C-alpha cells in the first residue's frame, strides 16, 4: 500500500540499526548522481525522480543530463519516448554532450536536439529507421563540435556522408555498420571513398558489414592518416593479404579483420547469405525490423470520421 508519509520499514534490519539507516543520505549528492545516471535516461525520468525529494532534486540537475542514454525502452509508443527524450534534452539546458537514440528517433527530434545542443560531441543514431539523410545532414550542420557519430543500420546516402564529413572537421569516430553480405560480387566503395575524402581526422572507424573493396580500403588508408582503430568485420569484399595487409597493419594500431570474431559486437551480426542472383542488391542495408512492434490502431487514419462508432452505446 502506498503510504502518504514516511514510516519506518518493518524489516528486522531496520529495527536493529535504528537511526543509522537511511544510509543513502550519507552519500554525497555527486555520488547519487553518478549512480542514478547509470540507470539511463528513461529509468531516471520514470522511476528515479519519483522515489524521494533528494533523488528528485538530483534528477532535475542539468549535470545529470549531459549524457543521455536512451536505452531499455519499454512498451510505450514511439511518441512517448520521443517526448521523454525532448524532456531530457530540455533538462540538460544546452549542456548536452553525448546522446544515443534508438528506433523511435525522427528527423524532428534530431532537429530539436541540434537546435538546443550545439556543444554536442557524440551522437549515436543506430537503427533509427525514421531518420532520413536530409534530416541527419540538417542536424549535423548545427553540430560543428561533433567528434563521434554512429549511423549504423540507418538509410544514409553516400553523398550525405560527404556533407557530414565537411560539416564536422573534428570528427574522430565514425561507426557506420550494416548487415554483412557474403556475396563477393556485390561491391561498393562509395562509403569508403566518401569517408576518405571528407574525414581526414578520423581515429576510429567501424564499417562492419560494408561492401568496400581493396580500393576503398586503400583510399581510407590514404585519406585518414590518423586512423588508430579500424573495424572491417564482415567486409567480405576486402582481401586483407599481402601488401595491403602490411600497409594496413603498419598504419593502424588495431585492425579487426573481415572474418574476426563478432562476440563483442553490440548488434545482431547475422550475415546475409542471399545467394539468388535476381536480387542483385539483396536486402537494404537497414536491418530487418523484426523487433519493432508497430502499434497500428484499428481505427482509420482519418481522425474526423468516426460517425459510426459510438463508445457510449453500451451505456444508453
Amino acid at each position, binding site marked *: *500500500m*502506498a*503510504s*502518504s*508519509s*514516511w*514510516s519506518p*520499514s518493518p*524489516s528486522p*534490519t531496520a529495527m536493529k*540499526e535504528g537511526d543509522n*539507516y*537511511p*544510509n*543513502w543520505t*550519507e*552519500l*554525497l549528492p555527486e*555520488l547519487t548522481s*553518478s*549512480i*542514478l545516471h*547509470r*540507470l539511463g535516461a528513461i*529509468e531516471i*525520468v*520514470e*522511476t*528515479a525522480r*519519483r*522515489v*524521494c*525529494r533528494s533523488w*528528485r532534486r538530483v534528477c532535475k540537475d542539468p549535470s545529470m543530463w549531459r549524457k543521455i542514454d536512451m536505452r531499455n525502452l519499454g512498451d*510505450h509508443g*514511439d*511518441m*512517448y519516448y*520521443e*517526448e*521523454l527524450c*525532448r*524532456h531530457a534534452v*530540455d533538462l540538460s539546458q544546452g549542456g548536452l554532450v553525448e546522446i544515443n537514440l534508438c528506433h523511435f528517433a525522427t528527423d*524532428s527530434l534530431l532537429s530539436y536536439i541540434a537546435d538546443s545542443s550545439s556543444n554536442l560531441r557524440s551522437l549515436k543514431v543506430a537503427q533509427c529507421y525514421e531518420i532520413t539523410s536530409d534530416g541527419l545532414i540538417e542536424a549535423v550542420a548545427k553540430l560543428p563540435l561533433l567528434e563521434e557519430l554512429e549511423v549504423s543500420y540507418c538509410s544514409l546516402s553516400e553523398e550525405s556522408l560527404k556533407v557530414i564529413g565537411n560539416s564536422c572537421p573534428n570528427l574522430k569516430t565514425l561507426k557506420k555498420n550494416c548487415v554483412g553480405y557474403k556475396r563477393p560480387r556485390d561491391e561498393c566503395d562509395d562509403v569508403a571513398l566518401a569517408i576518405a575524402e571528407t574525414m581526414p581526422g578520423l581515429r576510429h572507424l567501424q564499417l562492419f558489414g560494408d561492401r568496400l573493396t581493396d580500393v576503398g580500403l586503400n583510399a581510407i588508408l590514404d585519406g585518414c592518416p590518423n586512423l588508430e582503430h579500424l573495424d572491417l568485420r564482415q567486409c567480405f569484399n576486402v582481401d586483407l593479404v599481402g601488401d595491403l595487409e602490411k600497409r594496413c597493419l603498419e598504419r593502424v594500431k588495431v585492425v579487426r579483420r573481415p572474418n574476426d570474431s563478432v562476440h563483442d559486437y553490440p548488434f545482431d551480426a547475422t550475415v546475409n547469405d542471399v545467394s539468388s542472383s535476381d536480387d542483385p542488391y539483396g536486402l537494404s542495408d537497414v536491418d530487418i525490423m523484426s523487433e519493432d512492434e*508497430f*502499434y*497500428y*490502431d*484499428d*481505427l482509420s*487514419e482519418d*481522425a474526423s470520421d*468516426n460517425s459510426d*462508432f459510438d*463508445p*457510449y452505446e*453500451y*451505456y*444508453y
Partner: protein
Amino acid sequence: MSESDLDIMEPQTMKSYIYLQTADGSVQQVEQEVAMFCPMICQEVIHNGAGSSKNHAISLPQRVNTAMFSLILDYCRFHQVPGRSNKERKIYDEKFMRMETKRLCELTSAADSLQLKPLVDLTSRALARIIEGKSPEEIRDIFHLPDDLTEEEKLEPLKNTMDDPRIRLLNRLYAKKRKELKERERLKNVEVEEHVDERSVDDLLSFINGRDPKVVKMSKGKKKYKKKKNQKIISSNDKESHDLHFKQQGVEDTGCRMRDLSSLEDEIFTPKDGCEDDEIDPAMKEMLDREVEDFARRLNSNWVQSLGQERRPVHFSINGNGTTRRHIGNDISFFACIIVMLS
C-alpha cells in the same frame, strides 16, 4: 621492536608499513604497497610525509570506519598485485560485490572518500543494478528513503510541449478533479453537498468536444501520460503490474480495472501541500467539477455492469506532433479514458 627502529626502517630489509587511524580512533598498520593503492593515502604520504609511525598516523576520513576499511584493504591487497589477469580481477570483483545493500552504500561512501575510483565504480554499478527495474516504492523500501514527495509529484508527467487544446482541456479537468478530491479529504467530517447534474450525456459530450467556447479557452496545463499514471496508481496500491493501456476503441475492457481505481482514489488523493493550480473562474470550476464527477460516476457504474470476460491490454498513445501514425481518433473516447481514471 621499538618505534624508533620502525621509523628508520629501510625498504630492502623490512616490509614498509603505513599507519592509519580509522574514525573510531584505532590505529592500524598496513603494508605500504596496499595502502598506497588508495590515492588519498598516497597523497598524504608523499605530500605530507604522514603515516610513517604510530604517532603520525594518517587520519582516515570519517566515512571510513573499521569494517569498511577492512573491506577496502582486502580489495586493495588483491588488486595491487600487478600480475593478475583481467579475468581474475573481474571474478574477484563480482564476488567482492556480494554484500548487503547497506554495506554497499557505506562502502561506496568510504571508497569515495579515499578517492579509490575503481572501487567507487564497482560499487556504484552494483547499486545501479539493484535499483534497475524496480518501482519507486520498492526502492524506498530497500534503501530506507523517505516517502516525501507529494502524490502530485509522484504522478507528474513529462513537460507538456504539445499544444493540443483537447489535451489541455482534459488535463485541466483532471487537475480540477484532483483538487476537488483533495479538498474533500480535508473536509472529511463535513457533509459534502451532492450536485445533481440533470444534463444528458449528449450535453456533456458536446461540452467536452469544445463547442462551449468558455471551456476551450483554458490556460496551459501539463500533458499527462495516462498509461504511466495508471500504472503508478495501480502498482502503488496493488503491487501488481497491471498493464493499463487504453485503446481508442475499447475502453470497455477496462471496466474491471475501474473498480480497483475507484477504491484507490481516496488512497491517492490524500491531503498534501503544494497543489498549485492555475487561477480559474470559480463558476467555471464548479461547472467542471460537476461535469467530471457526474460523468465519472455514470461511466463507472455502467462500466462495471458491462464487464467483459476478455481483458486484453489495450494501447493508447497521444499524438503530439501531428504525425498520423498514432493519434487521438475520437474526442469522446479520449475523454472517456480520462474519466475512467478519475472514477
